[in-house]
């Protein structure tokens, strides 16, 4: 399958890329790893008159802790994130997430920024970034601005990024002590989108109560959703199985999955409940709560 014709541009700096995006407006698309965009263009589910490839811009691939944040360059490939020592040691939820995205070959090209900017509620990083309360950094003609992840996803395949902006960085607050996170996904086979998946990041106090909870679901509605009802229920309560079970029930109740070949609405909601509970339990374990 061959995409419709387009012009290809390979800027070597962020300002050059933004200038191209400003010039071409809505007729341009940013291509990062291309692992979501190229299949869409090949299947002719999408078209672009201009592709602006940000793959030639140096300095957009990094994973490092700095200034109170874990900073992930927008063009960081999933394979790099997955193998990053700081991620493996301190952000296991990100390692969990990276290793269930598509397959290892795709992860050699696919990027973290692309996974978010594509705006697909079936992608895996959105839920994780919601749970982590990340901030997205966008650069446009007016300079840099930050967008809290809760305001980033605006609709199906739609984000807060303007057509002349590039996602350059993701910032995740460095977790306090006694914090743990986990991402748990049910997929029919390697490479599939989630039938259901849950991301949990929790911080406990010395007595084993929840101080802070981030919980979000993948593929549970037209936009990636934070499970506010479950989070609010847990804060201040004991990290006990009964509380986790009730929170998971509330999260599933608030989910709005759609039926497809992966299952009925009822099945997906039930799986969301089971996975939310598993993610929370694993997060608590990793926070040193058990």
């Amino acid at each position, binding site marked *: *399958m*061959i*995409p*419709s*014709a*387009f*012009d*290809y*541009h*390979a800027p070597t700096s962020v300002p050059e890329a933004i200038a191209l995006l400003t010039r071409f407006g809505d007729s341009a698309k940013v291509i990062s790893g*291309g*692992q979501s965009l*190229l*299949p869409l*263009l*090949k*299947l002719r589910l999408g078209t672009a008159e201009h*592709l602006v*490839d940000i*793959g030639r811009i140096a300095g957009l691939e990094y994973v490092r802790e700095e200034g109170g944040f874990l900073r992930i360059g927008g063009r960081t490939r999933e*394979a790099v994130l997955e193998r990053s020592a700081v991620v493996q040691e301190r952000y296991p939820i990100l390692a969990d997430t990276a290793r269930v995205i*598509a*397959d*290892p*070959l*795709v992860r*050699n*090209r696919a990027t973290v920024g692309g996974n978010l900017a594509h705006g697909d509620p079936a992608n895996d990083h959105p839920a994780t970034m919601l749970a982590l309360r990340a901030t997205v950094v966008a650069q446009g003609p007016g300079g840099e601005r930050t967008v809290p992840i809760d305001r980033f996803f605006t609709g199906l395949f739609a984000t807060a990024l303007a057509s002349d902006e590039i996602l350059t960085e993701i910032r995740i607050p460095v977790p306090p002590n006694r914090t743990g996170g986990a991402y748990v996904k049910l997929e029919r086979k*390697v*490479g599939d989108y989630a039938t259901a998946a849950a991301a949990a990041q929790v911080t406990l106090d010395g007595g084993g109560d929840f101080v802070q909870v981030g919980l979000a679901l993948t593929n549970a509605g037209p936009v990636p959703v934070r499970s506010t009802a479950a989070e609010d229920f847990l804060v201040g309560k004991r990290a006990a199985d009964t509380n986790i079970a009730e929170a998971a029930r509330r999260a599933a109740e608030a989910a709005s999955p759609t039926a497809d070949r992966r299952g009925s609405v009822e099945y997906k909601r039930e799986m969301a409940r089971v996975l939310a509970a598993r993610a929370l339990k694993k997060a608590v374990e990793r926070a040193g709560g058990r």
Partner: protein
Amino acid sequence: MSRHDVQLTVNGVSHRVQVESRLLLVHLLRENLRLTGTHIGCDTTHCGACTVLIDGEPVKSCTVLAVQAEGAEITTVEGLEQNGKLHPVQEAFWEKHGLQCGYCTPGMILTSCALLARDKDPSEAQIREAISGNLCRCTGYSNIVKAIQSAAERLRQQ
């Protein structure tokens, strides 16, 4: 539609080709360079039959634009044999019957080469994870895993 001069190295040989922006890497390899060892299976980023190494990393060449390969070092299955002698991974696939119809084999072998370049002694779980983006509809994977284990042993002895 824009056209681009692309300079790339394939199996150690430098090429300069002019391509349409929408040409896929797999078509550049198969049609322009006549390297038909790289197969097209699903053409939808699932099966891995089109796997090649770009700068040593296995990727699906049906989901890379040829123009994106500017400056890259690409290895296809044709590049593994040296001086008429099969690569140890190829030898192992042959000896352990790691193929039946052979359609997935070039991709499977290249993914295995990349794995073994990074890790000389992978566990069975690591092998299965590494090839999880390469689908084989014949073998049930058992002999492929055995072949990769055998190749690892050969490479450790080298």
